[in-house]
């Protein structure tokens, strides 16, 4: 550091990365999202080789590395496998805290799905609790067509 710059006023230059994105969900995720939107059902996809049932669905099995073949409905009941109650209003959190984030393993699925719990009292959240989805009134084909999961 040059000595003659000590005491210089640090100028802050404000900017941002502002690039619009439109992600193609692809056929597989589109099938999942339209089922949420139009039928209020949660769908999963099964690997014909190892039998794993994936939620969220994906086109290929990460282990067998072959195309997944069979669509099925899972839930709507599920079990909370992990959760946290977010207490601080971090920038990424759109709802007002406290917000309960959780992994929910829907009945019939091999993997858990990341979502929110809708609880009157967030402190009652616990792993192992049984939950069911609450669907949004206005559904647009996004993961938020499920508002969250509430006690079953």
């Amino acid at each position: 550091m040059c000595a003659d710059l000590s005491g210089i006023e640090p100028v802050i230059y404000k900017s941002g990365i502002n690039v619009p994105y439109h992600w193609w969900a692809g056929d597989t995720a589109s099938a999942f999202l339209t089922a949420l939107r139009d039928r209020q059902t949660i769908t999963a996809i099964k690997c014909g080789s190892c039998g794993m049932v994936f939620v969220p669905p994906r086109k290929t099995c990460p282990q067998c590395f072959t195309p997944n073949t069979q669509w099925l409905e899972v839930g709507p009941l599920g079990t909370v496998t992990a959760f946290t109650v977010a207490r601080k209003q971090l920038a990424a959190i759109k709802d007002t805290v406290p917000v309960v984030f959780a992994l929910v393993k829907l009945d019939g699925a091999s993997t858990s799905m990341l979502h929110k719990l809708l609880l009157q009292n967030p402190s009652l959240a616990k792993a192992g609790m049984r939950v069911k989805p609450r669907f949004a009134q206005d559904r647009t084909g996004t993961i938020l067509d499920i508002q969250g999961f509430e006690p079953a």
Partner: protein
Amino acid sequence: MDRCAIIGFGMTAIEARKPGSTFADMVWEAVNKALDDAGITIKDVENVITTSNDFFDGRTISCMAVGDASGVREKNCSCTEGDGTFGAFYGLSRILSGAYGTTLVTAHSKGSESVSSLITNAAFDPIYERALGLDAITAAALQANAWMKATGATSEQLAMVSVKNHGNARHNPYAQLPMEITVKDVLESEMIADPLHKLDCSPVSDGACAILIAREGLVKKGRKKPVWIGGVNFCSDAYFLGDRDLAKAPALTKAAQKAYSMAGVANPAKEIQAAEVYDAFTHQELMWIEALGLAEAGQAGADLAKGRFALGGALPVNPSGGLLSGHPVIAAGLYRMAEAVRQLRGEAGAAQVDGAKRVVVQGMNGLCGQSHCVWVLESGK
């Protein structure tokens, strides 16, 4: 593997904000300290790897900002995106490939310039997950609960990690948060996301680090005692958090086993004298200690409570103060490597681990530690 060694390192002080320094200024400082430490000039450096991340830097092709400061003019160079331990791995492989004799590896981060919550939210799948509003902290909190439930670890044990690491940082002139705190202080600090309090989380930081790796024949160019690379490997777990058992870190265990095997380490808990691990959150230090084979599964919390990982204990972990005392993301793992070099040279002052001959270092990428890189560094060949 051909023998290679780290012959120099340079670190800037880790600070909450460095308003007077650009990325390039920080890297320039770290590079020149590293060159000075090794007693060589930039002309002796045969190729350069920079490590950066376009999201954290707020810039596409973020390596552009630090090329000149890393001395890439007239040299072959490249850029790794991710933690500095991965950048160092690529730097090492460019020596092992026979192409170059010396590699300069740099990594930098200015958390103060951006909003880390939004940047780590962008690591979630844009179609299935991102709109839910999680970030690195809330994801880690999910993991902390899952791991505590699986192992019976307590919030007090997590807090002890914070007490230990902030305490160790008092001996580290580069640390951002040297503090003498108690378990009670941690437990009474603001709850961010259950069960993680503010003092369970690493801070937002600015800093840059550089290391110099050389192949055996060129090691004598360095004026300090070389620190030899015994082993290295890396491994990624599944992506979706719901695909993983969040209470376990099998990818870290696999990477560690391969690195140990390369270094001829059969019993890491006995043959390693210190560890510098990626303690972005208190529970992660304990999880990583177990996955690295430095404690029995489910025993890290209890071992910690007995003082095993403290300075003066049988196996000090993060004697530098770790990331809880300063977390320049991306550079963080390279800082861990540099801290290990200080230990192995016997330059760690009051934080020196007596008889440190072999130190394990861990860096990671992704949410809840999806992808890990493990290094075994040694004072002797």
